[in-house]
C-alpha cells in the first residue's frame, strides 16, 4: 500500500468539471511538483490534500485511510501570501504550533516548557536562516523571509505531508533560487513528503523527484467547462530531455489559451 493513493478522483462545482478521473500513488518522502495552466485543478487538488475541499467522487487515501475533511496538524501548508500571523514576532510565529499542541486550553507555554520549546524554535529558525530576524515582526521581513518563516512554522510540527501552493510565485528570481536550495536541503534533511503547486514549468523540472502535469485531454470549445483536467504526464525528474519539456510547455500553453478564449 502506498503512502498516498488517489483513485478515480473527480471534482465538480455544479456543471463545471475541474478534475476528472485522477489516479496517483505517492510514496513517503517523494517531492512532487504540480504544474499546469491556471484553472486546471492543481490548486483544487492541493486543497483536497489539505482537507479544505472534498472530492465529488473517488478515493483519496493516506495510508489506506480517508483524508480527514478538515485541515489538521499532519498536513502543513505554505501559501503564496498571508501564511504567517502578523500579530506575532518571527519567534512567536514558529512557537505557535508547539504551544497549541501542548496547551489545548491556554494555547500558551510558560516557564521551562516554554524554554524547551524555544530551543526547538531557535534551531528551526537557524535552519531556515532567520536567526538574525528572530524578534522582528513579519511586516518587517522581505517576501522571501516571510516564506522562510512560513516554512519553518509548518515544519516544526513535523507534518507527514507539506503542501506548498505557489510558495515562490511572488518572489524575485534571485530569491526564488535561494528558496529552491533551502527547500531541497530541508527536504533531504527531514525526508518529508512534499507537494508543490507551481506556475513555473522550469521550477517544476528542477525541484523534487516527480513532476505531475495537470492538463485537459479533451476540450469542447463551445463548453469549456464540460471536461476537467487530469494528470497527463507523471514523470520522474532527472530522466527528461529538453524536447519533452517543450512538448509539455506547448500542451500546457495550448490549454491556457483555450481557457482564456
Amino acid at each position, binding site marked *: 500500500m502506498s503512502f498516498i493513493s488517489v483513485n478515480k478522483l473527480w471534482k465538480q462545482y455544479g456543471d463545471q468539471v475541474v478534475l476528472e478521473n485522477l489516479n496517483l500513488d505517492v510514496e513517503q518522502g517523494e517531492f512532487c511538483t504540480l504544474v499546469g495552466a491556471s484553472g486546471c485543478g492543481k490548486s483544487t487538488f492541493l486543497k483536497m490534500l489539505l482537507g479544505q475541499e472534498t472530492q465529488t467522487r473517488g478515493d483519496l487515501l493516506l495510508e489506506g485511510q480517508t483524508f480527514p475533511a478538515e*485541515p489538521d496538524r499532519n498536513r502543513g501548508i505554505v*501559501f503564496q*501570501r498571508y501564511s*504567517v500571523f*502578523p500579530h506575532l514576532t518571527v519567534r512567536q510565529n514558529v512557537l505557535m504550533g508547539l504551544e497549541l*499542541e501542548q496547551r489545548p486550553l491556554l494555547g500558551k507555554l510558560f516557564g521551562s516548557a516554554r524554554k524547551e520549546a524555544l530551543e526547538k524554535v531557535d534551531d528551526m529558525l537557524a535552519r531556515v536562516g532567520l536567526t538574525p530576524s528572530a524578534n522582528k515582526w513579519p511586516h518587517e521581513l522581505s517576501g522571501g523571509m516571510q516564506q522562510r518563516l512560513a516554512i519553518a512554522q509548518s515544519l516544526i510540527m513535523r507534518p507527514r505531508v507539506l503542501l506548498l501552493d505557489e510558495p515562490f510565485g511572488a518572489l524575485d528570481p534571485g530569491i526564488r533560487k535561494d528558496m529552491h536550495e533551502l527547500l531541497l536541503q530541508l527536504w533531504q534533511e527531514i525526508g518529508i513528503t512534499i507537494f508543490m503547486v507551481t506556475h513555473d514549468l522550469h521550477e517544476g523540472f528542477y525541484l523534487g523527484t516527480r513532476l505531475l502535469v495537470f492538463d485537459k485531454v479533451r476540450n469542447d470549445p463551445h463548453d469549456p467547462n464540460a471536461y476537467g483536467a487530469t494528470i497527463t504526464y507523471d514523470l520522474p525528474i532527472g530522466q527528461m530531455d529538453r524536447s519533452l519539456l517543450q512538448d509539455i510547455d506547448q500542451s500546457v500553453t495550448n490549454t491556457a489559451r483555450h481557457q482564456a478564449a
Partner: protein
Amino acid sequence: MRLINRTPGRLTATALGVLPFLILLLIYGLASQQRLAENPNDKLLPGLEQMTAAVDRMAFQEDRRSGDYLMWVDSLASLERLGMGVGVAALMALVVGLANGVLPLVRANLAPLVSALSMVPPLAILPILFIVFGLGELSKVMLIVIGTAPIMMRDVAQRVRELPTEQLIKIQTLGANSWQVVTRMALPQVLPRLIDAVRLSLGPAWLFLIAAEAIASTEGLGYRIFLVRRYLAMDVILPYVIWITVLAIVIDQCLRLTNRKLFPWYNAGGH
C-alpha cells in the same frame, strides 16, 4: 500645475488648518461685541468676560445650594456613564462579534438578530428603558449600550471575517482547536480593530448620553446644558459644549495612542 497635485508644505498646512477656527472666533467676537454694545445684558452672544466668569462660577466656586463644584460633578457623572456604557458595549461587541465572525453556526443563528437590532433607532426605545430600568443610572447606561453595541458587534464580526482565509487554514494545520483559533488568532488581531470601532462609536455614545441626561437626570453635562437653557445662559452652555468637545478629543487621542502602544504590528502596516 493641476490643483489636485498641489500639496501644502508643513507650515502652510498648519496655517490652513488653523484658519477656519480663527475665522469662526473672529465672526463670533465681532457679533458678540456688537450685541453687547447695544445691550450690555445681552445673553445670546456672551463675550469672553462673561464666559470666563461663568466657568469660574461653575468650576472653581462651590455651588451655593449644594456646596459642589458643579462642572466637575457634571463631568464626573457624565464620564462615568459614558465609560460604563461604552465599556459594556465594547465587551459585548467583542464576545458576540468574535463568535459571529469565527463560528458559522453562531453566525447563522445570531447575525440576523444583530443586524435587525442595529437598525432600531435607540432614542425611540429610550421611553422603554425609562419604564423598564427606572430613571436612575441604569437606563442611561443601557441607552449607550443599546445604541452602540450592535454596530460594534457587526464591525468586529466583519473584521474577523476579513482576516485572510490562509491564516485560518494555517492555524488549523498547526493543530489549533476552535477555541484556540479564537484566542490565538482572531482575538489578538481584532483587539486593535475594536479600539478603532470604539473610537468611531464615541460620537453616537455622547449623543445618547446627552439625550438621556437631558430627559431624566440630576447631574451631568447634558443635564446642565438643558437646565440652564431655561435662563438662556449661553455663557454656561458655550463653555460646556467646548468642554465636551475637548473631552471627546482627549478620549479619542488617548485611545489612538493606546492602540499604537499596545499593537505596534497593527499600526506599522502589519495587517
